[in-house]
């Protein structure tokens, strides 16, 4: 499965590139990621979040990069869900913003993991990636993922509607946190 999405962020390409190049930042906006740990100059260890299937982890390496312009990576070894991605950073016509163009390819297997991944992407798989980029834009432009009463858990807000009512959270809800 191949997914593409794009957004425009009102920051210079160097800044947006640098944020992405620090791969440990990816889980702040990519819903399916729990953690990315840098293990070398171009290698990293990725851990998936619950909706993508529990306890899935894989190694990845950067296979191509041009500072300020492009990063391409792919999973290595025997990843449960082999995947690869490319992100390009292009100066927008306004001269101050950066267009982010991302392309992800997943080789979805059969079995339980394949089902979990298929369920995660649902009927509109591109929507998940669109939402990831919306959160990337929020994080870079405003400092963090924006929360509302209806969608209080930031990147873990899976449901847009219906969702919890637009009224403040109780102490119990705040203590419990997002359903994981």
């Amino acid at each position: 499965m191949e997914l593409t999405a794009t957004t425009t962020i009102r920051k210079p390409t160097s800044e947006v590139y640098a944020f992405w190049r620090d791969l440990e930042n990816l889980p702040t906006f990519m819903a399916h990621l729990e953690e990315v740990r840098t293990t070398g100059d171009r290698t990293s260890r990725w851990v998936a979040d619950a909706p993508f299937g529990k306890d899935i982890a894989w190694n990845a390496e950067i296979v191509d990069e041009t500072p300020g312009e492009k990063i391409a990576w792919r999973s290595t070894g025997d990843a449960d869900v082999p995947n690869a991605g490319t992100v390009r950073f292009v100066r927008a016509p306004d001269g101050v913003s950066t267009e982010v163009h991302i392309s992800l390819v997943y080789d979805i297997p059969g079995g339980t993991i394949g089902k979990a991944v298929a369920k995660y992407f649902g009927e509109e798989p591109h929507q998940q990636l669109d939402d990831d980029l919306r959160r990337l834009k929020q994080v870079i432009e405003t400092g963090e993922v924006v929360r509302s009463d209806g969608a209080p858990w930031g990147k873990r807000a899976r449901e847009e509607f219906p969702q919890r009512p637009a009224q403040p959270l109780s102490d119990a809800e705040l203590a419990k946190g997002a359903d994981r």
Partner: protein
Amino acid sequence: MRANTWAGRNKVEVRDVPDPRILNRRDAIVKITSTAICGSDLHLVDGYVPTMQDGDVMGHEFMGEVIEVGPDVPPERLRVGDRVVVPFPIACGACGACAAELYSCCENTNPNAGIAEKMFGHPVAGIFGYSHLTGGFAGGQAQYARVPFADVGPLKIESDLADEQVLFLSDILPTGYMGAEMCDIQPSDVVAVWGAGPVGQFAMDSARVLGAAKVIAIDKEPYRLQMAERAGHIPVNFEEVDVRSRLLELTGGRGPDKCIDAVGLEATHGSAHVAAYDRVKQAVRSETERPHALRQAIMSCRSGGVVSVIGVYGGLMDKFPAGAWMNRSLTLRTGQCHVQRYMKPLLKRIEGGELDPTRIITHRLPLEEAEHGFEIFKNKEDHCEKVVLKP
């Protein structure tokens, strides 16, 4: 705390809900001292804006005292104890839309952007108490509210102006003003305003302040027309006269140079069959609007004129008079108000005595009586024009 909530179509209910907390680092918590019921709240209660849920806290016109600020709100922008008016669109101040001062189109503040994108093509900003389509943010008809991006939106009131003089900077005064500003008013202009509700009244006052030669108010409620007349505007009752004929008479046959639709999607019509056509289509959801005021504004406007739309529309309309619009070189301008753009200049006009927002207030009620307030406002009982609620 106590808060007025949506409880299903045609029903609001003041209930106990949890107190708001800081969720984002640039939030503030405001203890609300005054809040109001807006005409657009009626669209939510009447069930014409989708994605409301039982228990949603309503209200997007409010002001009060800052009682808590998040760690990333710079103290030079906002501190505990500040008295603030809160603009209804939530805006981040950093995206492309905010940079262009299009605050109600902020690209970052709607966590439910996906729904808005499906309905409108591109997402719109988060709005307090105004459905999940605009983010699912609890509103301000309550004792307290969480205000995101508190370093961007809220206007500090540092003078001794009373709440009622500044409260409407949150929405309806800037909305009415933007309606007039979009008309690019010239000294020779006759401006006609459809709807003499609160926003219409402020659009009329703003048209006068911006230099219009003559301002016409179109409505069917005698008390609302009288209110407009007392403020110096010319009343036209569409239940008593043919609007087109009267407008031609008032403009020497030219038609108004600029027309403002301050009615929106629940227009009523003097002619029963036209009203029935749209009412039935709206009831079966095959169109979401009853756009009579807009159609009439387009048909009435002078060739080359501007039709400015500040009444709320939610989706799709039928029988849009595209021929009149195109062949007579009309300009159609519109937008949810970019309130942040207008708060400071309008505060100055209030301080200078050019605008008196208090003139439309007819009812002051405790928050506990919100349901009664909605009822009289909706049914236009007891000469209700604007209800201010006190938490």
